[in-house]
């Protein structure tokens, strides 16, 4: 191999090591799987609710459970790897993840105020997807890809009958979390 090829190879090696090392922690795949399972359960319970308000409350309860799962699994993954959660990649993830979620909360309140709760599915999927894309910009490639899938699903949901909302939420927060959580757990250390 020529000298400059070897030099190029060395630079590539450094870059690849940095990429791998920089995305080592933060997102827990098993957390995603767990959130997927609880979301499917929530979808079943929510579909049996008579009023839209009870339906919304079911999903809000699921959101609280999911946040708990996410925090706990991320914390324990960071702990087992011996890294601090709120330094480096973890902190960048939280900082870019939070703003779209905050917008989601505000828009949910707006939809409740104008009595259009049924339209909430598309909004939630879109904004959660945005949060995952922006947060995942610093993480392993599969994370922003999951966010993108959420965004596509949310966009489709916006233009579908609002009665399909529950199905879209089940497909997104249930299905996508299960699939991508499984991939992350299998390939990126839990």
């Amino acid at each position: 191999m020529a000298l400059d090829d070897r030099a190029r190879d060395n630079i590539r090696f450094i870059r690849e090591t940095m990429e791998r090392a920089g995305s080592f922690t933060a997102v827990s795949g098993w957390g995603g799987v767990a959130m997927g399972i609880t979301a499917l359960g929530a979808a079943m319970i929510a579909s049996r609710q008579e009023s839209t308000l009870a339906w919304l409350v079911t999903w809000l309860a699921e959101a609280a459970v999911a946040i708990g799962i996410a925090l706990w699994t991320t914390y324990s993954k960071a702990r087992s790897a011996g890294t601090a959660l709120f330094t480096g990649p973890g902190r960048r993830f939280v900082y870019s993840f939070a703003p779209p979620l905050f917008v989601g909360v505000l828009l949910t309140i707006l939809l409740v105020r104008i009595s259009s709760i049924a339209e909430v599915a598309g909004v939630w999927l879109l904004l959660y997807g945005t949060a995952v894309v922006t947060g995942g910009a610093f993480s392993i490639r599969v994370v922003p890809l999951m966010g993108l899938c959420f965004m596509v699903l949310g966009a489709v949901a916006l233009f579908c009958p609002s009665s399909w909302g529950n199905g879209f939420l089940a497909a997104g927060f249930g299905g996508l979390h299960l699939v991508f959580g499984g991939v992350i757990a299998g390939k990126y250390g839990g």
Partner: protein
Amino acid sequence: MAAKSSAFRAAREEKSKQGTAAVGPATAAAPNLDRLIHERTRLAIVSALAVNATLTFNELKQLLRVTDGNLSVHARKLEDSGYIACTKSFDGRVPKTEYRLTANGRRSLEKYLDHMEALIQATREG
């Protein structure tokens, strides 16, 4: 990915601001190549620590897919040369070894990158 490649770029740009002239085309045969960092496992350790404040022994082992013995030998060498610093502590009852890159180590990585770029540049011109 953006953060990592920008860290990579920043490391290079910072160095090139200081003048890359030290490693001119004439030295393309690389007589003053930093052997300490040139070895693959050690280069990987330094690169991984360049984008993480600290990494534990086990993290590095998993990340670089090397054996305990291999990693400890190379980490020791880097530590002895002041490229990385090592702190030992206890996480409950489990001993924990944490590594971080020193200013000296970061400079050496930047120098090494410049050296590689100079080599590429030299063949392009020649």
